[in-house]
């Protein structure tokens, strides 16, 4: 369960920007939620805060009852490691590592055994349809294939929460549908809580709950 109470995020630059303004939000375990809004409305910021990559200026965020601001840096890292899978707006694969190694990385960081790592990484790359491209470097893959590697990496640990920032944003619509199908499939199989940021209407409408942000404020929250 994800719970935000009175979350505000300001960025101090030449001009102060309020990216999020008093956001209250509760997402239950196993929900699949889409997050829409114009560019600059604070979607990525919200995801980063939930994932513990950044801290709110005021307000509190709790994951399964654990208040993030109350955690030490290491505890926060462990929480992120155990609970959260990230799919970034830009693929963020490590360019020097092969597909297999990119997917293995989070498992290495968790200190898994080699055999287990290899097995899991194979399983997930096969799942996203890249079972035959294990040794390729990201630059040798198409955009859609890269995004699929990123998804496999995010899911490699079977995270209870999946945060996806425009996973289909850089893809053509057919590939986008395919990727979304993949996420829905995983959501159904593993009861993963999914939060997808998207600009794509059809992607948003495929989610049972849709939230809209504007200027850092939740302007719509509906379930279908």
């Amino acid at each position: 369960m994800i719970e935000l109470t009175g979350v505000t995020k300001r960025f101090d630059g030449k001009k102060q920007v309020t990216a999020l303004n008093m956001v209250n939000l509760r997402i239950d375990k196993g929900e699949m939620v889409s997050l829409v809004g114009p560019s600059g409305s604070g979607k990525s910021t919200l995801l980063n805060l939930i994932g513990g990559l950044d801290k709110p200026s005021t307000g509190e965020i709790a994951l399964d009852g654990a208040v993030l601001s109350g955690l030490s840096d290491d505890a926060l890292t462990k929480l992120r490691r155990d609970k959260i899978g990230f799919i970034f707006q830009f693929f963020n694969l490590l360019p020097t590592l092969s597909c297999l190694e990119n997917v293995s990385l989070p498992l290495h960081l968790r200190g898994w055994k080699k055999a287990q790592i290899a097995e899991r990484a194979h399983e997930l790359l096969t799942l996203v349809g890249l079972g035959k491209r294990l040794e390729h470097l990201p630059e040798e893959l198409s955009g859609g294939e890269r995004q699929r590697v990123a998804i496999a990496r995010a899911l490699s640990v079977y995270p209870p929460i999946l945060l996806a920032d425009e996973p289909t944003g850089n893809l053509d619509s057919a590939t986008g549908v395919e990727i979304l199908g993949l996420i829905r499939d995983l959501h159904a199989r593993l009861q993963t809580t999914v939060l997808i940021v998207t600009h794509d209407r059809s992607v948003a409408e495929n989610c049972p709950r849709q939230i809209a942000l504007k200027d850092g404020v939740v302007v719509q929250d509906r379930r279908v």
Partner: protein
Amino acid sequence: MILLRLISWQYVRKHLLRSLLTIAGIVLGVAVFVGMHTANQSVLTAFTNTVDRIAGATQLQITAGEAGFEEEILERVQGVPEVRVAVPVIEAVAMPETRAKGNLLILAVDMTGDRSLREYALEDGDDSFIEDPLVFLAQPDSIMITREFAAENGLKANDALTLRSMDGPKRFVVRGIMKSSGLTSAFGGNLAIMDVYAAQKVFGRGRRFDRIDLAVQEGLRPEEVGKRLEQLLGAGYQVESPSSRGKQFESLSSVYGMLANITSLFALFIGMFIIYNSFAIAVTQRRSEIGILRALGATRGQIQGLFLAESAVGGRWGRGWGY
């Protein structure tokens, strides 16, 4: 560490040039420091060696100003039980009437007793250096020169050699040639050895010596023996260690040493700057990589460990090459 293999090695392979530059930076930093330090050390060592070689194993030297000593003083010093060996020395500077430039330092020693204090490496084994030792000692014009000096001036055994001294030109005959090592290298070969009693005659010293070189009995401290000798001989005689006689050398070398240390420090500073810079650049260029790793659940410790391991490996390579 798997992380190191997974990321750093791949990174090195992919960015060979950048990695090489980083390592080259470390190489340069270490090389500059080590190089400066070694150079300074070897110059200092050369200075010290020169002082040491002239002095040989001499622990104390007795002088008495311009006039020098009577032979009787030498006997008294040799009679002191704390003195292991004491030998008379006459030093003279002469100008050779030859092609080669530069003065010749003539060290006149007691050919029979001095070998226990100084090391002369002699050509053709120890005893054949002199065509005939008896002739060498019997003839006051006998002189032993270095191999370099002989080669420079086209001299060989039994050739005549005229030297201008304070008392006018003197004619010598080469009756021995020394290898260039130990003592002789101190003057770059411009050193000649002759018998001290012959020198008394040739340089008009009468029955006097310039100096007494001595070594004390095993286990005794030279300073204490020195004090005792000063008491024994009374005023007008100085008993000093060769190193304090070489004061000029010493003050020169300490000034040089200080200068050398300052340049070393500079080099160290530059070296540190280069090394710091290499890594700062590497870390900045890889900030996004660090970000991704953090997002994927790498702890601060894991990332620090990665960079530390990397710098350890890079540093080891760099240092290896820097040397």
